[in-house]
């Protein structure tokens, strides 16, 4: 009871820190809305029963699985932010003799409440836009209101988001407890082992060989399995090598940096390449998929002209599905980047205040922050696209890979993603302004 009363008091007082409340709520709302919309679309696919329905259902499952990684990343970021912003008050509570269990309970309650508010908002948004989503054409006609999930499934999704927030809050709180000392006692920037490179090169080569062999296989089932394993395996090794590549690139950037903003950005990545990777890993997957999509679109565009009406519809539908998945994925990555940055500003507010004191212009701080995200983002997007091209090349040949339509699709996807993340970063500027305007009393 005392815990609930304290949680209520904390929640009420935190109204002043608006942006740190709004950001996680918006993030959870986006997660829920996208999840429900995509799940609704998948539900519509599963309502079909004819011969070709199976193919649509497989594609729907692939799209859903692609969204799982950015979705979990965003949920985790939002929960960590709502946990971290309580840092000071929780520390005070600890000093006043609150037990670790009480402190943990308060954090979990607050984060879960914010997540539930966001999730319910997201569910309402999904409901509001459902008439528009219902207009999206698949198989030559609008999806219709079969995209509406039953209230039970919506409740399960909202509860699931709340549970994700609760778990992430516990993990995030552990980070809060450890981070001040962790920063102070950290002596060397963490290193990422080069063995990851060997594994990655090996797996990508293996997948490329498998794709080459695939041209001689006639069984569609085997082709699908090899494609799925190849796709999943490549994405898995991207996660393995990503931090290593980011560290390598940032090391060079730190050495060559001539300006404060470049130096700060490169060092921020070097401080935790894995954290930098986590922020942009959703883009790796989307970028990887953009190449597949680009090639697919070009391939189907070529085939579509001469194909039967059903094939033409399938081509158009896959194009629509890919586009929706890419947009959803980038939206989540952008939200995740914004929320992570807001958390990072709050974590290091004393440092930002001290930089302001020594005369570092706010524009310079913002530029360094943006660069610390956008530089890994560029490396990740391009690196993943190249990896995907290597994997796809044996299957499609160079001419299709370099066809204008492929390149335009890939470039448009990547540009849109980078722009979205950039916009999310800009949205965190008020958090820094607020931190500088209201420094802690000890400063």
């Amino acid at each position, binding site marked *: 009871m005392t815990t609930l009363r304290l949680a209520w008091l904390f929640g009420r007082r935190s109204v002043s820190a608006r942006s740190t409340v709004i950001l996680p709520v918006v993030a959870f709302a986006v997660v829920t809305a996208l999840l429900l919309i995509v799940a609704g679309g998948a539900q519509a696919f599963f309502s079909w029963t004819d011969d070709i329905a199976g193919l649509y259902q497989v594609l729907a499952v692939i799209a859903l699985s692609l969204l799982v990684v950015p979705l979990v990343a965003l949920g985790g970021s939002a929960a960590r932010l709502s946990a971290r912003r309580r840092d000071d008050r929780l520390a005070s509570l600890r000093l006043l003799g609150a037990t670790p269990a009480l402190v943990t309970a308060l954090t979990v309650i607050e984060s879960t409440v914010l997540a539930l508010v966001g999730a319910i908002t997201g569910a309402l948004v999904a409901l509001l836009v459902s008439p528009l989503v219902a207009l999206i054409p698949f198989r030559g006609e609008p999806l219709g209101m079969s995209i509406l999930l039953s209230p039970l499934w919506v409740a399960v999704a909202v509860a699931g988001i709340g549970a994700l927030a609760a778990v992430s809050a516990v993990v995030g709180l552990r980070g809060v407890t450890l981070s001040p000392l962790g*920063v*102070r*006692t*950290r*002596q*060397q*920037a963490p290193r990422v082992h080069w063995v990851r490179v060997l594994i990655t090169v090996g797996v990508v080569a293996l997948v490329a060989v498998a794709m080459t062999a695939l041209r001689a296989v006639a069984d569609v089932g085997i082709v699908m399995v090899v494609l799925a394993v190849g796709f999943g395996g490549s994405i898995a090794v991207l996660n393995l090598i990503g931090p290593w590549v980011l560290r390598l690139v940032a090391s060079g950037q730190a050495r060559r*940096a*001539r*300006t*404060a903003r470049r*130096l*700060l950005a490169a*060092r*921020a990545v*070097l*401080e935790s390449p894995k954290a930098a990777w986590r922020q942009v890993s959703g883009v790796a997957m989307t970028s990887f998929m953009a190449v597949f999509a680009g090639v697919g679109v070009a391939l189907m565009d070529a085939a579509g002209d001469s194909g039967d009406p059903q094939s033409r519809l399938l081509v158009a539908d896959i194009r629509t599905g890919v586009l929706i998945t890419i947009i959803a994925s980038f939206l989540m990555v952008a939200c995740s980047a914004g929320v992570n940055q807001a958390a990072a500003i709050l974590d290091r507010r*004393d*440092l930002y*205040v*001290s930089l*302001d*004191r*020594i*005369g*570092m*212009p*706010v524009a*310079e701080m913002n530029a360094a922050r943006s660069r610390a995200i956008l530089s890994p983002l560029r490396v990740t997007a391009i690196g993943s696209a190249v990896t995907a091209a290597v994997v796809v090349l044996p299957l499609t040949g160079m001419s299709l890979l370099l066809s204008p339509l492929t390149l335009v699709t890939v470039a448009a996807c990547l540009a849109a993603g980078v722009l979205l993340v950039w916009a999310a970063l800009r949205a965190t500027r008020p958090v820094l302004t607020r931190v500088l305007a209201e420094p802690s009393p*000890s*400063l």
Partner: protein
Amino acid sequence: MTSVPAAAPPAIVATALTKSYGPSVALAGVDFRVTPGESVAIMGASGSGKTTLLHCLAGIITPDSGSVSLATATGPLEITTLDEAGRSRLRREAFGFVFQQGLLLPELTAIENVALPLMLTGTDRRAAEQTAAMWLAALGLAGYETRRIGQLSGGQAQRVAIARAQTTGAAVVFADEPTGALDSQTSAEVMDALIRSTTDRGRSLVVVTHDETVAARCLRVLRLADGRIVDEVSAR
């Protein structure tokens, strides 16, 4: 302690400074001056207004009324009339700061931390790091250039912070509880380093402190209570 010429023109002159936070009066008409090569300690209980005074003098905040004038090569500059960008530039180019916890960037090396203020003024990194290396050596930290802050002791980190405050050739260095987190032996060493790198080189030093031994190292000690100077002791 070092002596300064009695007739030296002041580096900073502040008159009739007032500052309130809502109903709470932090400064109630404070006059202040510091000359080149002079060190001034500002003491007082918590809430007496000493940090607010330091922030007004350094252009971190603007007082409600009163003036703060900085001597520059082109004549006196009224700080209180500058906008945020102007005050930020002033802090970057004319002032140095040493904070209680150093507040150095843990992801940067010692030399990068010290070179940072110079890089912010547009100096090329190579030149900035040369100056930074010189200051680190002057403060007994030669050989520590590439160490990260986590690899340094508290006293060493604070000397890095002192070096950082010197690189731009600041006319005035502001130190807010510079030895607050240190033991007495290290505290004495850090104050030696601070005096050596500021007043011994003709720069002004303004120190906010609770520590009488730190204040005793300064030429002048001001005591604040309820936003007013209630006592002033000069070593001269």
